[in-house]
């Protein structure tokens, strides 16, 4: 039988709260340490204990890290979902289950391989404590998998020793439980399977982490000193990581005192208010939230836009209101972020795709907020924020100094004539600000939303209002040149594909597959709003642009139509919004289908 190396999808079906997460995480990490490209995905319920949860690992020698439909190996450890888990296996796939109790006949499928291991029975004589037995089940199936898939055993045992360092009495039973599984597999199963792993050297200096951790770390490096938040999945771990890294990296050596302040606010309205108050008073500050929080923060975001106050907001997107589906991923806050609030408002939005980009954008957002004196919204999502994925390592240039933007200190105030907070001195729409308490007699001003002149004096003059709004628009144009540029790959193809955020993960695979079908596309990965010239050019230079996004209403497409005044017919929506991350198959089939339906010629047809 021919052997396939490093190319499969394995899914672990567990019960939430059963301790499976650490065993599953170790599985993925072991493959990573063997130099094999892996991507992990958690599909979890809005629940702490008891409901089904799945953990999926995609293993791909080619480095395809997006979600792929179809499961090759199912580790079915949840009786409740057993039926659907069996059904989700591809023909020829492997069903791994605990056969302490025999498999009910209705679950048999003739087109798959069944691998039963009596895990519960094996553990019974070894561990007396039933709770321990429950936990070690996970480690035992990990042991079986090392044998079945040919995972280097010392890589895994090394990880166990490291994980329980300091709690040495846990190392021995963990390794024992793993060896029980491994020994059973060698004794009773055909090992290894034709689907297996093999050490590769495909990762270079890559790291494996999640976007929320990266965002937190980038915020530490970028100099955020005030953080306010209200817990909401999937954003919570941004602040939890920020706190952990601050405790580690931001304490004064001499006194142990904190060079940061974190407030768990009473709600998101308060969280953004704290951020704005701190930004107004010259401290770099940020919050992290998700869709419902963004909605609550909208009034304040408008104020910060008009009052021109730096603030950074991370929105780790999820799907609609309430609980349940909301702990699934989506890109559905694009419009509500871009145009949040009342009055004429438009906000700078960044769209990171990888943990490394989360790190970079976290620091860049703090610079941009100060430079542009406005809120910067960073749109990540559950897929990026909470799943470990491969990433370039984080990097920091020690010669980099924070860009605090146009701030006048006491000396500068002495040197200038009359201070006017909203004077457009440099012609870029950005005025000079002062921090409270700077100067005994100069530079103080009163901050309000609207109703002010260039000197921050109260006025309801229509002309002054309009002048201010025009200047804000000028500032907006300045922003479009300062935000991260889109990543464009243009080879003069007739049509193109435009995407952003986590849609970047399945894109290489989708493009390769499309090319095999004779569909070759130029690409544009949008990284920020306002759109830079390069985005405008990309859209202008392609007959049809497929806009791929993970929401129902084609929100990025609407934004493009609205902002670039493009003929909507030229922007073809490619949408997926079922709560999982978009897969390469999905992108490929929607685009290919469009080609077929509209009889667009393909490369192969042209060639023939």
């Amino acid at each position, binding site marked *: 039988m021919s052997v396939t190396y490093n190319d499969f999808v394995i899914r672990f079906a567990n019960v939430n709260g059963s301790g499976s997460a650490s065993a599953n995480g170790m599985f993925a990490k072991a493959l*990573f*340490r063997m130099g094999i490209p892996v991507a992990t995905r958690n599909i979890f319920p809005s629940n702490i204990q008891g409901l089904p949860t799945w953990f999926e690992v995609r293993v791909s020698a080619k480095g395809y890290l997006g979600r792929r439909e179809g499961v090759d190996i199912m580790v079915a450890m949840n009786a409740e979902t057993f039926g659907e888990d069996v059904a989700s296996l591809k023909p020829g796939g492997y069903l791994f289950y605990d056969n302490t109790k025999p498999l009910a006949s209705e679950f048999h499928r003739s087109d798959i391989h069944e691998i039963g291991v009596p895990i519960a029975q094996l553990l019974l004589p070894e561990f007396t404590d039933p709770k321990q037995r429950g936990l070690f089940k996970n480690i035992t199936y990990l042991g079986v998998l090392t044998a079945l898939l040919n995972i280097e055993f010392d890589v895994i045992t090394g990880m166990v020793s490291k994980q329980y360092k300091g709690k040495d009495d846990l190392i021995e039973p963990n390794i024992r439980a793993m060896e029980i599984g491994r020994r059973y597999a060698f004794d009773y199963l055909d090992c290894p399977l034709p689907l297996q792993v093999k050490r590769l050297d495909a990762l270079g200096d890559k790291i494996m982490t999640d976007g929320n951790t990266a965002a937190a770390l980038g915020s*530490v490096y970028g*100099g955020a*000193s*005030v953080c306010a938040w209200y817990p909401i999945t999937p954003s919570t771990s941004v602040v939890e990581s920020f706190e952990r890294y601050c405790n580690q*990296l931001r304490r*004064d050596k001499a*006194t142990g*005192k*904190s060079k*940061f*302040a*974190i*407030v768990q*606010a*009473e709600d998101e*309205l*308060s*969280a*953004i*208010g*704290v*951020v*704005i*108050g*701190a*930004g*107004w*008073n*010259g*401290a*770099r500050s940020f919050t992290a939230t998700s869709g419902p929080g963004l909605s609550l923060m909208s*009034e304040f975001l408008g*104020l910060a836009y008009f*009052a021109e106050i730096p603030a950074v907001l991370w929105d780790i997107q999820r799907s609609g209101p309430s609980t349940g589906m909301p702990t699934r991923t989506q890109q559905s806050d694009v419009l509500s972020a871009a145009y949040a609030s009342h009055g004429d408002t438009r906000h700078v939005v960044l769209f990171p795709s990888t943990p490394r980009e989360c790190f970079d954008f976290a620091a860049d957002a703090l610079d941009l907020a100060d430079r542009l004196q406005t809120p910067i919204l960073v749109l990540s999502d559950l897929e990026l924020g909470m799943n470990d994925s491969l990433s370039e*390592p*984080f*990097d*920091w*240039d*020690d010669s980099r*100094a*924070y860009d605090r933007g146009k701030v006048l200190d006491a000396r500068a105030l002495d040197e200038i004539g009359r201070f006017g907070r909203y004077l457009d001195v440099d012609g870029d729409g950005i005025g000079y600000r*002062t*921090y*409270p*308490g700077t*100067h*005994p*007699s100069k530079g103080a*001003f*009163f*901050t309000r*939303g609207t109703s002010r*002149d260039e000197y921050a*004096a*109260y*006025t*309801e003059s229509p002309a002054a209002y309009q002048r201010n709004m025009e200047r804000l628009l000028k500032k907006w144009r300045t922003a479009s040149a300062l935000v991260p540029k889109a990543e464009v790959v243009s080879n003069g193809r007739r049509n193109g594909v435009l995407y952003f955020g986590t849609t970047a993960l399945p894109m290489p695979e989708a493009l390769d597959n499309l090319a095999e079908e004779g569909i070759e596309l130029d690409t544009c990965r949008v990284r920020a709003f306002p759109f830079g010239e390069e985005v405008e050019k990309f859209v202008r230079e392609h007959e049809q642009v497929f806009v791929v996004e993970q929401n129902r209403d084609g929100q990025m497409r609407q934004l493009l139509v609205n902002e670039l005044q493009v003929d909507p017919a030229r922007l073809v929506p490619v949408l997926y919004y079922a709560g999982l991350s978009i897969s390469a198959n999905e992108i490929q089939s929607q685009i290919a289908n469009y080609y077929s339906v509209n009889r667009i010629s393909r490369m192969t047809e042209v060639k023939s």
Partner: protein
Amino acid sequence: MTFVAKPAVHHPRLPVNDLGLTRRDYEGSVSTLCAGCGHDSVSAAIVQACAELSIPPHRFAKISGIGCSSKTPSYFLNRSHGFNSVHGRMPSVATGANLANKELYTIGISGDGDSASIGLGQFAHIVRRRINMLYIVDNNGTYGLTKGQFSATNDKGSTNKRGAPNLYEAIDLVSMAIQLGASFVARSFSGDKKQLVPLIKAGLMHHGMAFIDVVSPCVAFNNHNGSTKSYEYVRKHSETVVAADYVPAAREITADYAPGTTERVSMPDGSTLHLYKVAEDYDPHNRVEALHYVQSRQERGEVVTGLLYLDPAAMDCHDILNTLDTPLNQLGTGELCPGSSALTAINESFR
């Protein structure tokens, strides 16, 4: 309506403080509130208190929500930065401002609508966070800026301009503040400068959350037709006020009374306010007793004023968070960025 700066002429006979500054150096722009509005008296009391304390007039951060009361930070301390933020959300903005720079004196101005209705949650939580600030509510029992609707501090049974009674229970912010952990809680009356100025001074000097509920009459929406009141006081600069509706000037309500006595003050709408000055032997350090006292007097229709609760040793939010002595907004790249070598180790932890 445009901003009117006060002429910067110094009166030679005005007293100077320890910094050589007069009260004029602590003033703000000309008020655009109704003549006789209690809120202007509160602003004047703040000016006097800050001048008398000889705090440099640029070392304050003035934050407010939305409402007539929340407009007032424009009308005092012009040399300090002010922020007229969002309705009911002053406490969050003040929290951020205070976390960013612990060295400034943070003054929050709010209204009873701002703090007891839309912002009740923020009020409760800033009190329990113990932000080091002076939090003043200009309490007029009504929504001044939206023209006279009942507010949540309006007493049940009292009537509006058209005679309709308020049907709902009143929220007492003083009782809430005491209960939620404010370490300085006072109530005063905008017309009683003798009492108010010392309280403001004490509140500014207090380390921790200082809350003052200032009963501050709204002359516009409690001054209905047929009122036989005489207007003895005409506000300074009233001619500079340009308003959409004509509002007759009213007398500024003043009260001056000795400790240990009850004073009845006629309100613009004809009702009577009972002011009870806390007895000199009152012990403001017992939280439970203070709460009991305030509420038992309230049962009798009296409003207790004065310094009602004080815990001079309380921690503030910075103490709780153990922040650096240097204000956070003064830390630069060198102090905040851990640098690339730490990052190398962090990268390694992800392999």
